[in-house]
């Protein structure tokens, strides 16, 4: 029924998990297992650690799980298979027991009331097997088919293709409700609502766009905790004309070699840089990262304006907490006191640790509310300078209600797009307004600008300087167009780059050094 390679790998994982306590040093094992549904082969103890860490945090923190494979059609009993996992530790799948499928009877209508279904199943399992289950996972037969075809493609596909395939499967599962988990974890609810918000925009398309704007990089992320840290190496090389080459590697730290001493941030990052041959190493405190992510997944989608402000504030707080929750090698230039002092001579305060996380969201949202409005339809046109063929632009509609993003729509009606006169933003706005309701503002952004911003503030974060920011401000003036001209855009356009930067930095960076 299920892909043989996937099955064998899964049983191997279960076997390892069941004997992990009796293995002397599990991290030193030579054998590897594959992360389910991915091409990555890793140490089984690392996978054990990941499950131990992430499953209770994001899926379910109680023991014993029942997997139920169900039919896509309406039958007298839609159950195709029952698999009971008795877990001694939450998230650690160690033993699997196949149960007779007749032992539980489920109809399609039962799926509308998972509360009742769960209670009924729990009583049956308790009576027949003497254990209490904490979670049921209902998987439609079509999910297995999708997983099988994905697994078959894995051996032949590149990393880029693998990610796209995985994202497509996730989207199909969510859109067609092919998987149910009860109690429903926040992450699943978050993803389901995100699919609704995106209104037909494919996750894989979003990934394709992100991939296309991120420059090449080679970075090692070190996730620190009281246990030996986990390494995630991500390498992206834009060598191929169509898609870049991506490489992902997960590893556990060799404690002795890197002088690991149960501390928040790893001390010897430079040593790691040489050993892993990466341009940069970013060390992140694991617990802070997990807290942030779990708060993100707890968020209702579409989120209220206040919630977005709060999450944004937390993200900014995380960024400003350099040396506390994260650090990196090479060190950011702006963390150098002498550099900051020299910049300050020009009247500019540029200090990462003084990022005004408490004031920036209010500043940005205040401007959006005032000049865009509480209800608005924003049209974003993404252009590509090098691609001058007509209709090569991507049109995205952002619908805002009471200051919160309510819906995102991707306009891909080719017949409609071919009729649009793409010469002026005014005419685009009028044409789109006719079909999609009044368009408040049109933003035309070139991919080149997004690339430049990402390169300056993300990939080359360590190189941020007064000049690199000034360069971005100049590009912003050149590669962004707004119609109608809202006052913030007029100000950006008309004010000298240096003065504008000075004004903005006085808002985004705290004045007082101490």
């Amino acid at each position, binding site marked *: 029924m299920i892909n043989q390679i996937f099955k064998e790998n899964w049983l191997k994982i279960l076997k390892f998990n069941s004997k992990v306590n009796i293995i002397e040093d599990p991290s030193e094992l030579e054998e590897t297992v594959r992360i389910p549904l991915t091409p990555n082969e890793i140490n089984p103890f690392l996978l054990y650690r990941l499950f131990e860490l992430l499953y209770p945090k994001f899926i379910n923190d109680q023991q014993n799980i029942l997997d139920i494979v169900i039919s896509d059609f309406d039958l007298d009993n839609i159950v195709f298979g029952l698999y009971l996992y008795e877990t001694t530790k939450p998230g650690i799948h160690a033993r699997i027991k196949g149960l007779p499928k007749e032992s539980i009877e489920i109809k399609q209508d039962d799926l509308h009331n998972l509360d009742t279904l769960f209670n009924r199943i729990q009583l049956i399992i308790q009576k027949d097997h003497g254990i209490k289950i904490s979670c049921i996972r209902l998987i439609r037969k079509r999910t297995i088919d999708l997983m099988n075809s994905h697994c078959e493609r894995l051996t032949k596909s590149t990393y880029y293709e693998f990610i796209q395939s995985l994202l497509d499967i996730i989207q199909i599962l969510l859109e067609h409700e092919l998987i149910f988990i009860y109690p429903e974890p926040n992450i699943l609810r978050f993803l389901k609502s995100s699919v609704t918000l995106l209104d037909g925009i494919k996750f894989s398309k979003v990934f394709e766009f992100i991939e296309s704007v991120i420059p090449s990089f080679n970075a090692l992320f070190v996730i620190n905790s009281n246990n030996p840290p986990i390494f995630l190496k991500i390498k992206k090389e834009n060598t191929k004309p169509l898609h870049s080459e991506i490489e992902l590697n997960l590893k556990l730290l060799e404690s002795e070699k890197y002088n690991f001493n149960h501390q928040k941030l790893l001390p010897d990052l430079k040593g790691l840089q040489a050993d892993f041959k990466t341009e940069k190493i970013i060390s992140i405190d694991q617990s802070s990262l997990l807290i942030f992510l779990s708060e993100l997944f707890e968020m209702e989608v579409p989120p209220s304006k206040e919630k977005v402000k709060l999450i944004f504030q937390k993200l900014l707080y995380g960024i400003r907490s350099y040396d506390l929750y994260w650090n990196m090698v090479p060190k950011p230039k702006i963390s150098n006191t002498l550099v900051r002092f020299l910049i300050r001579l020009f009247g500019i305060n540029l200090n990462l640790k003084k990022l*005004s996380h*408490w*004031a920036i969201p*209010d*500043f940005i949202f*205040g*401007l959006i*509310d*005032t*000049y*865009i*409005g*509480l*209800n*608005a339809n924003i049209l974003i046109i993404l252009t590509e300078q090098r691609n001058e063929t007509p209709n090569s632009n991507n049109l995205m509609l952002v619908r805002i*209600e*009471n*200051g919160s993003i309510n819906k995102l729509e991707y306009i891909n009606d080719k017949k409609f797009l071919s009729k649009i006169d793409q010469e002026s933003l*005014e005419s685009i*706005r*009028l044409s789109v*307004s006719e079909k999609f*309701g*009044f368009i*408040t503002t049109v933003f035309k952004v070139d991919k080149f600008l997004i690339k430049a911003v990402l390169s300056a503030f993300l990939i080359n974060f360590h190189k941020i300087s007064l000049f690199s920011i000034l360069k971005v401000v100049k590009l912003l003036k050149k590669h962004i167009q707004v*119609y*109608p*001209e*809202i*006052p*913030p855009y*007029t*100000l950006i356009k*008309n*004010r000298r780059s240096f003065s504008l930067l000075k*004004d*903005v930095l*006085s*808002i985004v960076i705290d*004045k007082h050094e101490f």
Partner: protein
Amino acid sequence: MNSTEVAIIKSNSPSEAITDGIEKLGGISGFVEKGDQVFVKINLRTPGGFPVNTNFDTIKTIINLCKEAEAKKIFVGSYPFNRLKTDSIAKTLGIQSYIEKLGAEFVFLDDQNKYPLKSVEINGKTIEFPKVILESDRLILLNQVSVDPLFKCTISLLNTYSLVSNQFQKIQKNVRSGKDYLHLDQYKQDLITNILDIFSVKKPSLVINDLFYFLEGAGPFIYKDSNLKRTNLIVVGNDAVAVDLITLRLFEIDLLNSDILVEARNRRLGITDIPNIKLIGENLEDIRLSVDFCVSKLEDINIKNTYVKAGRNCSGCFKEAYHLLNLMKTHMTKDLKYIIKQSFLIGEKPPKPESLENIILFGDCAIESTENREFRKIIITNSKDYFETAKQKLKKDSKAQDKTQIKEKVNKKIVELPGCPPSRFDCFNSLISYYGKSQVPNLFFFNNLIKTYYNQVTNKKTKVRD
């Protein structure tokens, strides 16, 4: 006319609600006839987003309905908010091409060459009206309803006020002999008289109060405390007073609680007896809209590090101070933290400030009535000359007691914002020059933004004692 019809419509979209409402009142042909010239009066307050100005989708609906009725010419327009030019607001909203594409003409009312004015005598006053409005066969009021600090809601009667330029909207302080200007709230009385005078010149044929999306909390501009509530309702009729009365009733506001409607009743400008209003659509008694109105006391606007105290004040100063304080709260997050402490005093004989630093005196009343108050002066104690005292003590001079010298100095930590009422935007310049741009970076940036569309004039009277 002794009776009228008003429709209360609930729908899934504002455009559907308007079409349905007009249909229920007999169709657009009952309001616009073939060959008519129609002027659609909208809200065009500032270059801000919805709901500061009218919903553009509803403008489209009205234009399409007028075209359906075979109107000869459809004009759309309004005078914008104080000292703003229609040109700058139209550019910021991109409204002209949108209206033209729909088959109507957007009117730049302040362009007197294209749209000349005509003098009209009302109650001994001469007011200049744009000819295009006076000569139109039909006037349609398309009004966005939000909360308002003076009149609870921005009803359609208030919308008619911007049929004339700001010059004729301005209320001059006119103190009648023997009458207490503040006690009688003469400003508000004069304002109501002015609004109704203008309303009486050209009565609308169709009035739409669009409260489908209602801005509650703080308004009618978008502030930090604003919240957009979806009511799914609109109120339509041909009698503005009746439509406004029914609109206010939806919020459980009676005629007697609305000064402007009481005055309209006294002047018989419309129907104010509910039995004479035939209600169509939703049942008035079934709808009770619960919304947060604007604060009635300025002290209730909770601003970080700001102590707000008011003495007796007129509605003009109240309104401007209300907007200034809300702008501060919305756009000065960082500044308010840097300032640490400020006192905002308004009105006649306001209570004393919390401290002697950063005192903002808002309006002529506050400035004049506090001329001799204690906080205008600060007492400086000269530091002791310890060396001299020690020397005297060694000489066993009995007179060598502490000789603390006390001096009185003018308190320079005061910023005066003169005017009755002062203009909120002009106040920004005074505040920036008082605090310095490094202390108020948010305000400095916001002021630069405003300069891109607002014609600021330097108020020579503004004094900053620093």
